[in-house]
């Protein structure tokens, strides 16, 4: 789920930056998932697309292929404005982000750098 070394490589080995963006993501991700829930409930395709796009961008640093794909799927559901598959896709994404959020909470609590 969370490949610390792969993420660190993408950030040029910058441990401090990893800690910083993990912190930003911990604040941002639940908020974005929440606004996707609201968008799905309100059948608001443009806002679903926007929130999924933003989350996809953040996940591209911290998440793996599977979780990025889940966000990408919601983004295209929003773009197509057919929300039939949205609740299921959102649940799949939320399940995966839960795992990532716990891993990142741990990372921020116990930084590997001095």
């Amino acid at each position, binding site marked *: 789920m969370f490949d610390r070394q792969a993420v660190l490589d*993408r*950030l040029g080995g910058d441990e401090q930056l990893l800690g910083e963006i993990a912190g930003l993501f911990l604040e*941002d991700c639940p908020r974005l998932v929440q606004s996707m829930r609201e968008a799905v409930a309100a059948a608001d395709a443009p806002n679903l697309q926007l929130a999924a*796009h933003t989350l996809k*961008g*953040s996940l*591209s640093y911290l998440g793996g292929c599977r979780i990025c794909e889940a966000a990408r799927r919601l983004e295209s559901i929003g773009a197509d404005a057919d929300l039939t598959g949205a609740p299921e896709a959102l649940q799949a994404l939320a399940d995966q982000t839960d795992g990532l959020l716990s891993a990142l909470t741990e990372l921020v609590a116990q930084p590997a750098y001095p």
Partner: protein
Amino acid sequence: MSALSIDSRSTSTLEPPAERLPGETTVLIVDDNLIDRRVAGRIVERQNGWKVAFARNGAEALLALERDAPRIVLTDLQMPEMDGLALVKEIRAKHSQIPVVLMTANGSEKIATEALQSGAASYVPKRDLAEELASTLKQVVAAARIDGQHQGLLACLTQRESRFWLGNDPALIAGLVALLQEDLLAMQLCDATGAIRVGMALEQALLNALYHGTLEVGMALRRNDEDYFRQMVEQRRVQAPYRNRRIRVLATITRDEATYVVLDQGPGFDPSKLPNPTDQENLNRSSGRGVLLIRTFMDRVTFSPTGNQITMVKRREGR
């Protein structure tokens, strides 16, 4: 043919050291995603003498252009308010001397292609920011430093043919590119953005002729192991057969078009093996970027069958 000497103050474009850039360089980073802004900003801040300004979309970027006077803009493509493509067009219309570099990602290939055709100077895949961003920004800033001191005289010029035989000194490339850019502007073949883009294409062609052709050191090596790459370059510059090879550059410029022919004396390659220029997926990879930029920024590009010679034509821009 004119007898021109190459500016001896020129610096290496492979990676011009930041401290040689006059004054501070502000990079305007435009992205709607906070984490993307932080990652790119951090890489820029680590460069000596570089400063960062941020904007969250194209509309904010236009205000920041006035406020922060950036030397270069680095932008995302898909953004609310005003996207990267619209921003590229606005900057070309109002600030054509400021180059724009795109950050590309999966899903943005189509808009990235359009932005590259509309005026962007280069691109960096988001997944390669850590390795590629700093060197790309430096290269583009160098290509945008166009010297206008001979403009009055050159405005009287109607045609010029220049021929250069370069050795294998990377430091000469920037000077030659700047000289050729100056001709281009004097002939009014394009605006400042166009000259920056032709400069990027010429530089890529010259770097290919030098590293791939003359010295036979692959750019892939540079990405993987920068120190070893530099060591190989220094070794081969004084070693036979590499040291005896020269690069010939022919530049013919008229009021209608500029033609550049770059020939190296290396073993050549099979040009049909180059990445397919119409495959938009290439925008998500750093490899093959040089040839993609050349093909986008020049109007006609042909290789000799042995790959040693590239001919590039830039026609007058209709505007």
